[in-house]
């Protein structure tokens, strides 16, 4: 048998986009009934060879042809029997085509009013949205609704394809009027980039090739625009977030944390903290089947090992210690309600946030968005296809970012624990402070006394032995912890310092301890209060010190 081979270290170019290779662009399409969306997609598939000859032949032979041309392109994309019979698209459908530069994934979403949930679904993974407007009809409530939902779901690039220009005499004034109407809306939308392209899906004008019939239009054809679109939502440019999906433990010497980087970069040697537990360590290895890498970036799926044996499981998030996410139990979030059963405040739902699953409840519905007027009105409940702002409370602290900062770690869905159905999509707007009285004591330089500790912790110091019932250790620890006690289980004798650290305490010492943060090396002012405040800032910067409310219990569920 051969000696155990050293794992090969791979160059990152093994994964990274190289010249001549394709990137992926995901876009959603939305349009009203009859505005030619299916025809437009059919043409993109047809002209870019995304549809196969036999599929085109089957459509050519179909007894249904609602178009005036030889091929009803919309039949290429209308999938299910029911919708072919009714002539409408009833669910999100995914389409694929590619050019030499890009692979495109289209989330084709229905235009029918009652299907807001599908539009949100299609928009959730999209980098860009193509919104069709019928040149003869102008900006309809539907178009506004599509733009609004796309912007709400964090799509920065909205492409308004003004379709059926052939039926509007390829008129510049028609196009300009629609453009003005839409631009008047954009302040109400959230900072999306608007691009307007006049097209005829039926005739192929400005779809793949620039059209000679609209010489007044100087911009790119639709496909040309999509091919060159700079996707600035690139998750790799954000702080590192590595949600642990699965622990790989083939033998005692290997404990790997498997996951897909939600954002940012990780490198071997990086000092990381696991949230919400707060354990810190350094990255030892980044493992892939193809070999080890020194660095990895979102959205790579990798397996990470750490220098220290710390307790991490599915749902924990590894981040750099100096760029931690929010941590808390109460948030304000936009909900897209997707179930026929109305939202019930106070009812326990399951929050699915990355790999994390936590009981959660909606404590208050604050307002509902009127997607036709883009205004918010007070509301007490949310129904199917409603969009609204609500306060939520989680049973345990969750590490998250706000959705507008990070689409991966700011998103969640709510699941009904009884029916198992997915009820709502959520986007976190902000963390809510827990209500808690905080003393604003003047600076006291004295030592903290035992009675003060007792008052602060709500208990005195004590050792409780459960030698005869060791299986009670964890349940009792949990129960005391939920009561707010500072409690820790000690199974084996440990060094005094480790015992204190395992208890989650901050230890200050005049001794030189390996691995300690050295606050003494800071340039500190002479004044004690000012010096201590500086050290507090340093500890905040290191991600050690959080605001108190991040750990506050709230009401509990």
């Amino acid at each position, binding site marked *: 048998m051969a000696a155990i081979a050293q794992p090969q270290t791979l160059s990152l170019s093994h994964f990274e986009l190289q010249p001549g290779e394709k990137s992926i662009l995901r876009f959603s399409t939305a349009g009203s009934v009859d505005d030619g969306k299916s025809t437009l997609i059919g043409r993109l598939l047809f002209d870019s060879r995304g549809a196969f000859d036999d599929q085109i032949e089957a459509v050519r032979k179909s007894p249904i042809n609602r178009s005036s041309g030889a091929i009803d392109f919309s039949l290429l994309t209308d999938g299910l029997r029911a919708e072919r019979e009714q002539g409408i698209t009833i669910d999100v459908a995914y389409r694929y085509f590619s050019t030499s530069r890009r692979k495109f994934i289209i989330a084709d979403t229905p235009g029918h009013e009652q299907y807001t949930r599908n539009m949100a679904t299609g928009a959730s993974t999209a980098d860009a949205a193509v919104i069709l407007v019928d040149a003869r009809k102008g900006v309809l409530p539907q178009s506004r609704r599509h733009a609004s939902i796309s912007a709400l779901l964090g799509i920065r690039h909205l492409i308004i394809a003004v379709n059926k220009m052939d039926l509007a005499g390829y008129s510049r004034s028609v196009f300009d009027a629609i453009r003005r109407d839409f631009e008047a809306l954009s302040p109400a939308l959230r900072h999306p980039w608007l691009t307007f392209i006049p097209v005829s899906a039926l005739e192929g004008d400005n779809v793949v090739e620039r059209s000679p019939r609209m010489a007044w239009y100087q911009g790119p054809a639709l496909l040309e625009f999509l091919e060159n679109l700079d996707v600035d939502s690139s998750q790799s440019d954000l702080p590192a977030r590595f949600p642990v999906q699965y622990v790989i433990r083939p033998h005692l010497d290997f404990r790997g944390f498997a996951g897909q980087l939600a954002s940012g970069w990780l490198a071997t040697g990086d000092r990381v903290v696991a949230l919400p537990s707060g354990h810190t360590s350094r990255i030892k290895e980044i493992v892939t089947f193809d070999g080890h890498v020194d660095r990895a970036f979102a959205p790579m799926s990798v397996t990470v090992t750490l220098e220290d044996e710390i307790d991490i499981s599915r749902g924990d998030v590894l981040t750099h210690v100096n760029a931690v996410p929010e941590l808390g139990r109460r948030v304000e979030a936009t909900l897209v309600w997707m179930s026929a059963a109305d939202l019930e405040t106070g009812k326990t739902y*399951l929050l699915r946030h990355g790999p994390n699953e936590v009981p959660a409840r909606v404590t208050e519905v604050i307002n509902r968005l009127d997607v036709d007027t883009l205004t918010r009105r007070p509301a007490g409940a949310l129904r199917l296809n409603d969009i609204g702002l609500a306060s939520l409370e989680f049973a345990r602290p969750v590490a998250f970012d706000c959705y507008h900062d990070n689409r991966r770690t700011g998103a969640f869905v709510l699941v009904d624990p009884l029916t198992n159905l997915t009820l709502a999509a959520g986007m976190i707007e902000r963390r809510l402070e827990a209500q808690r009285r905080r003393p604003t004591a003047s600076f006291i330089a004295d030592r903290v006394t035992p009675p003060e500790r007792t008052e602060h912790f709500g208990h005195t110091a004590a050792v409780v032995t459960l030698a005869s019932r060791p299986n009670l250790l964890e349940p009792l620890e949990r129960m005391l912890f939920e009561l707010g006690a500072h409690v820790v289980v000690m199974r084996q004798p440990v060094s005094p310092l480790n015992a204190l650290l395992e208890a989650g305490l901050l230890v200050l010492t005049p001794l030189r301890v390996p691995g300690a943060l050295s606050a003494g090396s800071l340039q500190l002012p002479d004044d004690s209060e000012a010096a201590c405040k500086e050290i507090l800032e340093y500890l905040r910067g290191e991600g050690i010190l959080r605001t108190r409310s991040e750990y506050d219990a709230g009401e509990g569920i």
Partner: protein
Amino acid sequence: MAMAQLSHLRALEAESIHILREVAAQFAKPVLLYSIGKDSSVLLHLSRKAFHPGRLPFPLLHIDTTYEYPELIEFRDRFVAEIGARLLVYTNTAAIEQGANPYDLGTAKCCGLLRTRALVEGLKHYGFDAALGGARRDEERSRAKERVFSFRDRQGQWDPKNQRPELWNLFNGRVDPGESIRVFPLSNWTEFDVWQYINLENIALAPLYFARPRTVVVRGETLIPVEQNVKLLPGEQPQQIMCRMRSLGCTPCSGAIRSDADTVPKIIAELFSFRRSERENRIIDHDQDGSMELKKREGYF
């Protein structure tokens, strides 16, 4: 650090690995449906990547219709032994004993018994709560709307009008006893992506995919290789033709195409030069309009 991007194949790979790990974490008893075809070979390769350096956390299940190509079974047994995976084989023996075959029953009914029924029964027999499959959304129109985590009721049926919303990369795998989820990690891959990835990763494939002279009969526009259980229709003459399979099915029902492509790069070049979707040579999909959707409603993969 700077912005970086993955190539489209590495991005697809990372997404599929994420889905595979979700399955291992969310389900008590998952299984990978291994048909030995190129898509499930890619799926198996991605599974090895997802759990490296650990072992596969689920077994493989092959639904054997008993009309399989012998060289496929031979490849299956060799490959599974090589990677140390656990293989389960399930056959609808009751239907076979009652003489189920495509000639007397027609392809629709035969498939219903030997694939659909066998699959639903096999999953029930072992008590699997999640079944991983290599189906792709670009294969057929009804698949374009299927979720990555696709719910099946106690009868193994799919209700296309009542699917769970699926947003971002958040997958809801919660089921009650008897219900299950079919999971499609290759949902966003196209046939080109699959072939390019096979080439990039050097994935071993069954020899049926590669062109060589085979004894076939010409039936309509399809070449049917003459195997021991293939019955010839009146007037059909076996002949030697250089051909290969684009998609693998049972011996009587999956046809070959005329081709010289005997390597993966040649197959990719051939795909670029003609544009016929791969399922066209599988007779079952053309039984009736929308036939794949009907099969899926009944539980076909």
